[in-house]
Every structure is written in structure tokens, then in C-alpha cells.
């Protein structure tokens, strides 16, 4: 009787693991298939039966899409937009979070609530006028038009404010006694202490900027400025028949985010944790 229920529990646990494993296959298999397709020398992505182990595997598609299509250009654009975007977001958040956490001044709480409350605003209504604004500034079809509107991240400001709040007052007092001014205090004492939060923000913003699609689609007009997300879709429309090239491009776009995610998982999950608590 007793051993029977233990057996049952074992079977249930095994079934659960089998289910979890199957689901993991479901979420990762399309990527494996994408990779396999990108390494094939013949055929298309849609072929019976599907090929999972290309023989012989070839990098010809990568060389091909890199040489004959402006993929290198798209890649460089993405790196540039992502790089500048991350730096701007981190700097703006690191600056704004500081007085909100550690200074007393009139209007502080109102500003903080306005910033956090802006998450409730229907942002999609703002897209229209953001385009008009950038047009007036003659910035449509520039890289800056892509990263400027998202440079002030509410999440980032919130994250950094939380990080500054945890710094013990003694450290600040000691620095003040040594005669440090507000900017030196911030730059030399506080900033190094919130480095983990800065790293978390940078990593989360990395996948945000790298994958951003809707806004660049709206403000960029000339293909030579497209980031990978917009460019890849553009190419897949132009070269619908050459799915192996597109697969290679998709792998090149995805690889950096997967590598960064697997290497720095902790930070991603911490980012969501804070978002969820918020």
C-alpha cells in the first residue's frame, strides 16, 4: 500500500519532468531548426522532410548574406544604436535616481510619482506626436530619433533610486566630513556602490534596444540606417525565396542576445523581479 503510493508519486514526478522536458523542446526546437537551416547548402526552410542535421554543414549562407546583402551594415547600425542607447539610458537613470533617493528638496515626491505614474499613460497615443516632434526637429531618419525617445527609462530611474536608497548614511556622512561636494560625492562614492544596479540596467536595456522594432520602423526611412530587426524583415520581403540566407541573418541577430542572456541570466531575472515588485 505504502510502497504503491510511493511508486505512484515517482511516476507522477517522472511525468512532470517529461512534460517539462517536452515544453523545453517546444521553446528551443525552432531555434535549432533555424540554425540547421542556416547551415544547409541546398533546399529551402520549407521542405519535406525537415532537415535537422545538414550534411555537409556549410557557412556559405553566412558568407553569402554578409557579402551580397547589407547585413553588415544592419549589424553595425544595431550595434551603434544599442551602444549609444544603453549609455544614455544608464547615465540618465544614474543621474535622476540619485536626488530622488538621497536629497531633500521641494517637489521631490511629486516628481517621483509623476515619473512612476507615467507608466500608466497610454504610450501608444504618444507615438503619433513623437513622430511629429522629430519631424519638426528634422530628426526623422536619424539614429538619434531611434534612441532618444526611450533614453529616459522609468524602470531605470526606479531601479537606480532603489539602489541608492540601500547605501548606508554613514558612508555619505564620512564623505561629507571630508568635504566632498554633491557631484564628487555622487561620482566617486555613490556611483561605484550602485555598479550592480547599473549592470542590471545595461543588460536589460541591451535586449530592449537590440530587439526594438516598432519605433525604428516608424522613424527610419532609408534602408542603410535600418537596424537588424527592421532590416531582416525588409530582406525577408525582398528575398523570400532564399530562406537559407534569411535564416543565417536571423541566427546572426539572435546569437548575441542568447549569449548575453545565458551568460548573465541572473541580471535578467533580477530585472524582472524588480519590475514585478514594482
Amino acid at each position, binding site marked *: 500500500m505504502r510502497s504503491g503510493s510511493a511508486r505512484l508519486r515517482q511516476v507522477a514526478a517522472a511525468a512532470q519532468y517529461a512534460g517539462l522536458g517536452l515544453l523545453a523542446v517546444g521553446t528551443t526546437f525552432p531555434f535549432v531548426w533555424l540554425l540547421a537551416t542556416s547551415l544547409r547548402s541546398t533546399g529551402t526552410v520549407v521542405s519535406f522532410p525537415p532537415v535537422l542535421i545538414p550534411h555537409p554543414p556549410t557557412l556559405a549562407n553566412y558568407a553569402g548574406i554578409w557579402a551580397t546583402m547589407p547585413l553588415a551594415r544592419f549589424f553595425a547600425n544595431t550595434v551603434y544604436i544599442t551602444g549609444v542607447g544603453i549609455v544614455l539610458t544608464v547615465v540618465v537613470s544614474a543621474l535622476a535616481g540619485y536626488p530622488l533617493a538621497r536629497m531633500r528638496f521641494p517637489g521631490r515626491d511629486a516628481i517621483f510619482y509623476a515619473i512612476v505614474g507615467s507608466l500608466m499613460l497610454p504610450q501608444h497615443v504618444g507615438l503619433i506626436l513623437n*513622430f511629429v516632434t522629430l519631424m519638426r526637429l528634422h530628426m526623422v531618419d536619424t539614429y538619434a530619433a531611434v534612441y532618444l525617445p526611450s533614453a529616459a527609462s522609468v524602470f531605470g530611474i526606479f531601479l537606480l533610486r532603489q539602489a541608492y536608497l540601500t547605501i548606508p548614511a554613514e558612508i555619505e556622512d564620512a564623505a561629507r566630513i571630508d568635504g566632498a561636494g554633491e557631484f564628487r560625492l555622487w561620482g566617486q562614492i555613490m556611483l561605484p556602490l550602485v555598479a550592480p544596479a547599473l549592470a542590471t540596467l545595461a543588460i536589460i536595456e541591451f535586449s530592449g534596444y537590440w530587439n526594438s522594432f516598432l519605433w525604428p520602423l516608424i522613424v527610419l526611412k532609408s534602408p542603410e540606417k535600418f537596424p537588424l530587426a527592421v532590416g531582416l524583415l525588409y530582406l525577408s520581403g525582398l528575398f523570400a525565396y532564399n530562406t537559407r540566407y534569411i535564416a543565417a541573418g536571423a541566427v546572426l541577430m539572435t546569437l548575441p542576445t542568447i549569449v548575453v542572456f545565458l551568460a548573465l541570466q541572473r541580471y535578467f531575472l533580477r530585472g524582472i523581479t524588480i519590475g514585478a515588485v514594482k
Partner: protein
Amino acid sequence: MERPPLGLPAPPAGQGPHPAGSPGAPPSASPAGRRRILTAYLFLLPALALLATFTFYPVIFGTALSLFEYNIISPPRFVGLGNFRRLAADRYFWIALGNSVRYLAVVPVLQGCAILLALWVHRSARGIGWLRAAYYLPVVTSIVVVGILWRWLYDDAGLINFVLLRLGLARGPIHWLASPGIALYAVMFVTLWKGLGYYMVIYLVGLEAIPPGYAEAAAIDGAGALQRLWRVTLPLLRPSILLAATLSAISALRVFEEVYVMTGGGPVYATYTMFYYMFDQAFGALHMGYAAALGVVLAVVTIGLSMLSFRLLREGGLSYY
């Protein structure tokens, strides 16, 4: 002592510089205090300028723009509620609104799956970290890559049809993205596939926050596993469910990118959504005022729905006991 905002830990005692001058005096009373205020605002300046320009201004004036006719080239012309009257008679508006609302069907499925998954992976076992990472992989992948990938999977000669035909589950290839009756649900499945890992993590965070004592006490009282789940864990998880369901409902109503990449709104408007219509009107036809009116309707639906979900789910969490 003021209440710490958003239930956050209170700032450490004695935190913050004390204003120069007599204790208790408002910080602006002395020149040093005024300089401190100036410094604080200098720190805030970049963030406030950017938020004002790209968040507050466009949302507020974008809402007002719904009362105007505006095509960028000529100055805006006030039309009162004219745009909304035109919307009411616009059949594409009703198609788009219907599809966006229908898209909400993805929310209960997605949240149910994510809760189940979180309950399953909420344990420390060998390899569980890898499983969680596997579920999260689609979340960090570009929607364009995901969309192209699924376009191929859904192809008449694609992998899904191949498997179905092989297993004898279909007699001919199913036109997943080309038949008006199925396309919207096929796109929804991609939203589910891409979002599962994200919501799983939200629920994992919620589960971490539940003290194990409750379930243990219920077990001692003789509650079975299902009863513990239904009567203890789920009610305690309600704040996370509220958060996740609201986030997921808002993004379902605003769905655009999946649709744009996979179907372009077709076939015959079967996947044409509110956001898609707004996008077309604003950046295709340059009917900025009309697009703003569409955006306002979408916002009203979103806000109404959020209020409803708060009503339904606000009770719960630790306050439940």
C-alpha cells in the same frame, strides 16, 4: 514620517543630508539650501527633459489631437468630435476593435499556462535552471526573428503541417496564416509561445514571496495537493496574477508587431488590430487626428479593462488570511 511609496522599504534612518541652517528650517531658507535644490534639479534635468518631450507632451497633446484634423503639412483644424463620429461609421474600425478584443482570449490561456509552469519549476532540482532558461529563450529573441520563424513553421509545406500530415491528423495542409478563420489564433499562439517564460518568472517571484508555512499548515490539516493549490497557493498568488494578467491584457489589446511580421493584417483583415489601424492611419495615410482618435479609443478600452481586472483581483495576497 511619510509612508514609503509603493510599499518599498523606508529609507535608512538619518539618510539624506541635513539642510544647512537651523534644524527643521525649509531647505530653501539659506543660500546653501538653494544651491542644494539647484543641484538636485540639475541631476534630474536630463530625465525630466526627455520624459516631458517624449512621454508627457505627446500623450497629453496626442489625446487632444483626436479633436483635430491634421496631416502634418497644413495646420491642425479643429473638428470637435468629428473623428469619433467618423469612427462609429467606419467598418474597418469595428473590424479592428473586434480583433483586438478577440485577442484578449490569449490572456487566460497564457496566464494559466504560466502559473502551471511556474508551479512546476518552483523547486530546486538538478537542471531546473536550464529548463527555466529554455522557457525564457523566446522572450529575449527579436519579434522579427520569432515572426519569420513561425511564418515558416506555419507554411503550407512547413514543419507543423508536415508533422500533422505524417501523423494523419490532417488530410491536407492547414493554411494557418492564410485562412481568415484561423489566422488570428495562429498569431495568438506565437504571442503565447513568446510570452510564456516572461510571465513564468513573474509568478516565480510571487511564489518565492509566499512563506512555506501556509501550505504546510494546510497539509497538516489534511488538505490534498489540489486543495492546497486552489485554497492556499492561488489566493496568495493573486497579486502576481493581477499584475501579470493586467500587463498581458494591455499588450494583447495593443498587439501589433506579431501581426505586422506574420500576416500584415490579412488575410482580408482577419488579423487587422486597433494598433495596426492606428499605425496605418498615422504613418501611412498621415491622418494624424484620426489616428489619435483611434489611439484614444484603444486607451479607453485599455483603462476600462485594467479597472475591471483590479476590481476582480484586488483582494487576495497575504491579506486574504
